[in-house]
């Protein structure tokens, strides 16, 4: 009950802030249009700008926090501030480092004298910048470490004979949920070995999902809706599943027991494909769900600018709040599903078959 009221309060506060920041951001846009005050807002551009990664952290209007740009190319490593990549009008500008760099839709490209993208040179440059998403991730890492190390400390302090208190009592049911509803039924008796991974994945995704829903600095980065992030997590699951996979797991892929030989040969490529589609589905599911949620909320807010009337907010705001509440649910659900499926894949790969003809 306390959790529910806390959540609704959270939603109300965040929705309010979200509207404030979103409106100020979008209101800044028409200035770029050629047709003056009545210029149409390019909704697609606005939304894509909000959900993609960036080299600086946009706060409001023309105010942004510069972030370090780290590039590695055949000419060596270079580090510079992202302020170098914009001019005094906050438009992308050319920075002459080892190459001439300019950002296009948030991505650093190498340009020639004429300002055209030099794809060949761009391919040689590796971008390891601390982008908005990376900075947001560092924040989430700090947050997670602080939360769980303090909870671990309170477990040590309070001992096992007393009931959990405070943050500990909030997180213990979630930890037990991951253990009893996710790990135990899917992995079986060896579940304890995979608990640290499952718990870390669950809370890492969940906290980042929630941080993405908070619209103002230092939150609001679409990290868990970024395909690079979800790909990394899916890769962890992929590596874990295939490294821990036992003899039976590989046998089921390459020589399915209990079926005729032509069927075995037929199933081999399908099963082999399944090895890769599992993590890919994990990657796309999380990416698409979180990105879709962000797009939905932004689209509803943009309705105000499409209709060019403040009265549109009468409809847009309640809808945006409603979607935000649903997104809170989705944030938890997607973290749960990712963890659940990871546990399922681990369970399938480590399952022990005692009777072969059972299939």
């Amino acid at each position: 009950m306390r959790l529910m009221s806390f959540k609704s309060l959270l939603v109300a506060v965040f929705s309010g802030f979200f509207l404030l920041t979103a409106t100020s951001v979008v209101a800044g846009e028409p200035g770029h249009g050629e047709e003056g005050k009545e210029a149409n807002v390019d909704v697609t551009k606005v939304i894509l700008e909000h959900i993609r990664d960036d080299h600086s952290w946009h706060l409001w209007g023309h105010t942004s926090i510069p972030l370090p740009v780290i590039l590695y190319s055949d000419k060596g490593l270079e580090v510079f501030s992202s302020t170098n990549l914009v001019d005094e009008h906050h438009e992308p500008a050319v920075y002459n480092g080892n190459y001439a760099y300019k950002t296009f839709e948030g991505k650093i490209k190498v340009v020639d004298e004429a300002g055209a993208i030099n794809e060949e040179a761009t391919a040689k440059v590796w971008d390891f910048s601390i982008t908005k998403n990376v900075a947001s991730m560092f924040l989430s890492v700090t947050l997670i470490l602080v939360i769980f190390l303090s909870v671990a400390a309170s477990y040590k302090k309070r001992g096992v004979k007393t009931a959990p208190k405070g943050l500990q009592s909030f997180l213990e049911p979630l930890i037990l949920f991951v253990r009893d509803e996710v790990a135990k039924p899917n992995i079986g008796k060896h579940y304890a070995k995979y608990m640290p991974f499952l718990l870390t994945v669950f809370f890492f995704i969940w906290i980042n999902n929630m941080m993405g829903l908070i619209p103002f600095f230092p939150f609001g980065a679409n990290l868990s809706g970024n395909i690079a992030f979800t790909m990394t997590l899916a890769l962890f699951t992929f590596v874990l599943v295939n490294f821990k996979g036992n003899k039976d797991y590989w046998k089921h892929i390459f020589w399915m027991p209990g079926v005729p030989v032509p069927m075995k040969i037929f199933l081999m490529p399908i099963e082999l494909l399944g090895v890769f589609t599992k993590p890919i589905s994990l990657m796309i599911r999380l990416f698409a769900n979180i990105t879709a949620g962000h797009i939905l909320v932004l689209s509803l807010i943009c309705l105000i600018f499409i209709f060019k009337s403040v009265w549109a907010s009468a409809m847009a705001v309640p809808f945006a709040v409603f979607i935000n509440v649903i997104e809170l649910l989705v944030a938890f659900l997607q973290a749960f599903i990712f963890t659940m499926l990871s546990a399922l894949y681990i369970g399938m790969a480590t399952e022990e078959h005692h009777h072969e003809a059972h299939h």
Partner: protein
Amino acid sequence: MFFLEVNPLVLPDIGLVVWSTLAFSIVLFVLSKFAWKPIMKSIREREDSIDESLAMAEKVKSEMAQLKNENEVLLAKAREERAQLLKEARETKDKIINEAKEQAKVEANKIITDAQLAITQQKMAAITEVKNQVGNLVIEVSEKVLRRELANKGDQEAYINNLAKEIKLN
């Protein structure tokens, strides 16, 4: 070239992949070592202690029940023993009384028999005595009659009557 035409949203940046890998590895390592291990251990210990306490309670409960059962059995046994003792006492009492009665009866009979015997003996002795005396008297009277050979028949009869009067049967 194909990938460059794809929406940049579904094009993973190598930078974020590297940083994510690093961040997740750090979180996984640190939390596994310093958070999940003690947390899971504490939870498991707490669950174990709860299980243990419940099992202990159950055990104590069954022990109590057993104790109660034993007590009841003991009580029933004691009650039975008491009843048995009372019964035995009653029987002993009856037996003693009966025996006393029997003995009294036997003694009484014996006394009566003795008395009767004594009476019979006395009676016989008395009768013998009477017989002897009667005999003696007859002899005495006969002697006196014989000694007085009187002509007088009247005197004779008066004399006999006189003598007869003298006989006092005591």
